[in-house]
């Protein structure tokens, strides 16, 4: 079933097909792009809807609900293209499912189920159905830890291809939660785990691996790749431990690195024009490298050493690499050597920063436009660049905004009157910012120089997935249900 790249006829056919499809895609794009929300946080993961349709202010799980659907458990966000909504979910502890709904009516178009197999340990609030699908309108691409990346026909759910992905492993037991994106004819996907991190691109038609780039300097993290066009060149940008990196999306070759990030990266950057904005909160200070966390949490007997029995077997190879004196225990720098790359001893801290895209090699000194040591960001909710400001929200419902131009504070630490955790990232459209709390309340703010609360809407259940906007409607996934909100 898989196309072999070495077969010239197939390649030729493929080229023709790509050319034809490119035309079709362009045509489709011109019709649908304003209304579609094709991946995690929509267009280029910005969370910003560019359509000019009015969006609802007041709604709830009962009010202004155009339709709703029972899903099963999950925290994957909905994606919408060509009048269809796609979601992933766990129907029960053993069954992973992909679903498609008619965006207008909510009618279920198809559902595909797969035995989940032996799922990995995860740490709540992570769920097994955590990866947001991506779609190009014709196909929908999903990732599930035990199944790999799969492509389905968007119209009927037919499985088109499947690529296994090695099970990721996390020293802190978080579990996987990365989401694919579609760029041109590629499905791009990364796994930054603590064992074997990588970035990979599949041919979106055949599923063939077009390139795979290891990211050995990275530790466990969950950032989604974004695209940044600067100086006429479009780079694939991916945040990871300590470093923001730019890659050639066609080859996977690393183009540049900005060594300005922290160790643990769970947020996704946003791009405005040629600038990449990032907000991070990581535990401890910038000097606090991984070994401190490992000695705190993985040194079971608290003897100040890590032994193999205190780690999962999959990490033993890394352990051996660090165990320089071969005494069967990792102490001090040996721990760093085992798990953290010598060239990337990033620690914790809190930052918000802007990096100009483009460049070559180490751009840390040349492209880092501003970098704030700020306690405003969340460790999981990504920033939102909207209306000239970078908006962030963190635990407790504390919002802050910074001017994109120079990082100056637009407003500091303002309560949006909804306590609790914020795992979903804020989204915006129609001059409004939608801030989703884990408690199921979505606070609507009027975008502007000062925060103005327009409404606080109760969705009735935990909300960890980032909502989606399409065609004047908001699609909200609670833990178990999908709501289409609109008028």
């Amino acid at each position, binding site marked *: 079933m898989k196309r072999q790249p070495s077969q010239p006829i197939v390649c030729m056919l493929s080229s023709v097909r790509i050319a034809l499809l490119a035309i079709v895609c362009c045509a489709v794009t011109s019709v649908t792009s304003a209304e579609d929300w094709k991946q995690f946080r929509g267009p280029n993961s910005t969370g910003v809807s560019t359509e000019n349709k009015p969006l609802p202010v007041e709604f709830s799980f009962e009010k202004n609900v155009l339709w709703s659907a029972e899903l099963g458990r999950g925290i994957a966000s909905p994606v919408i293209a060509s009048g269809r909504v796609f979601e992933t979910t766990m129907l029960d502890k053993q069954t992973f499912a992909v679903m498609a709904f008619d965006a207008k009516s909510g009618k279920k178009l198809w559902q595909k189920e797969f035995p989940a197999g032996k799922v990995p340990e995860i740490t709540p609030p992570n769920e097994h159905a955590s990866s947001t699908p991506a779609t190009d309108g014709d196909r929908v691409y999903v990732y599930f830890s035990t199944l790999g990346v799969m492509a389905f026909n968007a119209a009927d759910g037919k499985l088109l291809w499947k690529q296994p992905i090695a099970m990721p492993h996390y020293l802190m037991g978080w579990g996987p939660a990365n989401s694919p994106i579609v760029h041109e004819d590629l499905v791009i996907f990364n796994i930054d785990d603590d064992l074997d991190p990588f970035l990979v691109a599949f041919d979106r038609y055949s599923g063939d691996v077009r390139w795979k780039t290891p990211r050995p300097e990275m530790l466990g993290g969950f950032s989604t790749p974004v695209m940044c066009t600067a100086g006429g060149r479009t780079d694939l940008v991916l945040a990871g431990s300590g470093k923001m990196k730019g890659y050639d999306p066609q080859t996977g070759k690393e183009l540049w690195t900005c060594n300005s990030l922290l160790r643990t990266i769970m947020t996704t950057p946003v791009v405005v024009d040629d600038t990449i904005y990032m907000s991070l909160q990581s535990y401890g200070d910038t000097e606090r490298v991984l070994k401190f966390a490992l000695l705190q949490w993985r040194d079971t007997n608290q003897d100040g050493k890590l032994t193999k029995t205190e780690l999962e077997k999959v990490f033993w190879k890394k352990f051996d690499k660090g165990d320089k004196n071969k005494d069967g225990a990792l102490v001090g720098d040996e721990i760093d050597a085992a798990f953290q790359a010598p060239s990337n001893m990033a620690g914790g801290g809190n930052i918000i920063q802007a990096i100009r895209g483009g460049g070559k090699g180490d751009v840390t000194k040349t492209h880092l436009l501003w970098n704030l040591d700020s306690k405003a960001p969340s460790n999981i909710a990504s920033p939102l660049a909207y209306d000239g400001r970078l908006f962030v929200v963190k635990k407790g419902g504390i919002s802050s905004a910074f001017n994109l131009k120079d990082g100056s504070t637009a407003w500091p630490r303002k309560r949006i009157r909804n306590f609790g955790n914020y795992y979903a990232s804020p989204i915006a459209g129609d001059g409004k910012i939608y801030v989703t709390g884990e408690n199921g309340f979505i606070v609507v703010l009027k975008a502007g120089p000062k925060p103005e609360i327009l409404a606080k809407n*109760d969705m009735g259940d935990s909300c960890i997935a980032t909502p989606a906007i399409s065609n004047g409607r908001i699609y909200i996934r609670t833990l178990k249900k999908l709501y289409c909100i609109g008028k």
Partner: protein
Amino acid sequence: MFRHVAVALLILVAGQSIAHASDVNRVYVVSDFKAPELERFAATELAGQFRRLFQNVEVVATNKVPAAAKQIVFIGSPATNPAIKQAVGSKWPKVSDQGIVLKSVQASGAHALVVGGDTPEATLWAVYELGQRFGVRYMLREDIFPLEKQPLKLSGFDVTLEPQLRTRTWRTINDFCIGPESWGLGDHKKFLGQLAKLKYNDLMLSIYPWQPFVDYEFGGVKKQTATQWFGDRFRVDGDTVGKKAFGGAKVFENPDFAGKTGHDELTAVGIKHARGIIAEARKLGMTVGISISPLEFPREFQAALPGSQVATGLNQLTILPGAKQGPNDKRLKQAVKAKIRAYLQTYPGIEKLYLTLPEFPEWDQHAQPAWKQLSAQRDLGDVTLDQLIATARDRKLIASGKRGEQALKGNVVALAFLNNLFKDESLLTRADGGRVELVVTGVDPALFPLLDRVLPAGAATLHFIDYTARRVAEHKELLALVPAKIVRSQLILTLADDNVGILPQSSLGSLGTLMDELKTLGWDGFSTRYWIPAELDSSVHFLAQSAWHADLTPKDSYFDLWETITDNKSATQRMWLGEQHLQQATALIDKNDIGFTFPVKGMLMKHYRADKLPDWWQEANDHYTQMMIELYRVNGSIDPRATKITFYYAKRGEYVLTYLAAVKATREAAIAKKNGDTEKTIEHLETAVEAMYDTITTVADVATDQSDRGLIAVLNEFAYRPLLAEFEKLLDAE
């Protein structure tokens, strides 16, 4: 025709050869078809365990031993299973009615294991004992089996085990929504199943006057009150923090009572619910008792009991005898009789009736005549009431000083009343003619030396002594005053006290001390006391094991439990450190502010006062922090079978820290308010609200049962909402 016969023969031969081959890996679990139901249940349980424990083994439950059998387990005793009589003959050991037998034998060339006892109950415990010896650990919510199946082993057993404490009582229902009063029958059944595996053999339904578990009429007044949780209601709305734990319900309810209203409807459901619990306990071989407070009535009975007074309990739901009602008050006697008869008619199968003497007696005025009355009935020697009062006043229990005197006097009057009451022997007669055992609960320790002479004839006792196990252990010398060899006596062992409150608690060390005392002094047993089962696995396991083993220490028991299921000694050692931190935190609260998190209205806002922050708060915080760290740490390194449990424990450790942060910020807000600093007050209150919010969501993240949901309801109603209201009031006024 010939062809068909040939084929049939072939199949038969093949079948036989297959049967013969598979006999090697087949184990027959043999019980007699006429065996008691509980014994047959034991056989089913054993078969189920063997299927999960052993590799390549086919378990066949049967009533007859096949000739070709190579591996056999006999269930029961020579009296109930002829196969055992044949296999063991005169080698059946002499055991008591609770004694367990595990004995390997050879039977007709087969390896055989006898699993049984002289009663069906003992046989069931023998099955569970065997499971434990094969590595199964019975937790409160589930069984943890060994990670990998092992080869079947029937040889090498020659065990007889007798309990050190014969009555191992589990208390249920109780009186707060954080406790089993909120559990549905399904929850109770599951829990009872686990308790049976831990060889608890007695169930006590602790029932309060306002609850909907009985109906009676007296003096023209019909019982009207039927409510749970002291009449408190817990709404679940959009603003309820942690509402995900309630699955969309609009109000927190016991699922069996959902949507029911009014006395008649609630009582009908309540009786069905309680009968269901009793039936399940009986099915599992437990005896059952009901505990009531005989002298306390719902308030509507005030009309029928002139002179009674409203009790000073929560929400003032009941009346107690007043000054005008002496121990010989006829109407009171009739009322108590009516109530007792109603219980015995409603629950005709129970074996015990526990009568609790009032915790806060209001009729101590009659102490002297009551004492005279008791003295006249029994030889109390030359002990005077004044001497006893002096003892009660001078002791170090919570009930000391004036409260001690009041407790003692009230006790004396109540005992005089009960002695009068039970002159009517028919009162304890069941509908089937059998007799219910009377157990008097809560006799004042000053009366311990006279116990056999102040109780109604033949009554047993259940002793409370003080609220926490630590407090009782500190006064363990009182236990020696109980004539336990004359009066059948049990001690209430508090696993987690409602006054210490909602926070995780452990008194494992004190429980060890008390269990040693009970065994040494020849007490009959213990009865548990708790509300939230949460992290009680270690305590419950210890009591279960200690009741059968003379010298078992809490640490031994802890390691037996956790090292087995974590499969990690280092992790268990760290957990043990965490456990000790938990015990120290519990003791700090107990010593310094026993009502610290009592789950009632005002539980948090009582800290909204401008007093200095007590030093012990930080100390308790440090202990809980260490406990949480140890649990999170081991969570990443242990067998996945255990991580679900340790993660749950760790999250509960986390919630304590935010709760304590909320308490601290609330106190700081009050101090700022007193200093006239509104901005600071709001800032602290904001911190408190956020911390309380986090507290509740942390509990909700791992909520697994009705007690957890009850805790979320309590935290919303009694902590978060009043705090938020104060915060918003100040914010709006700013």
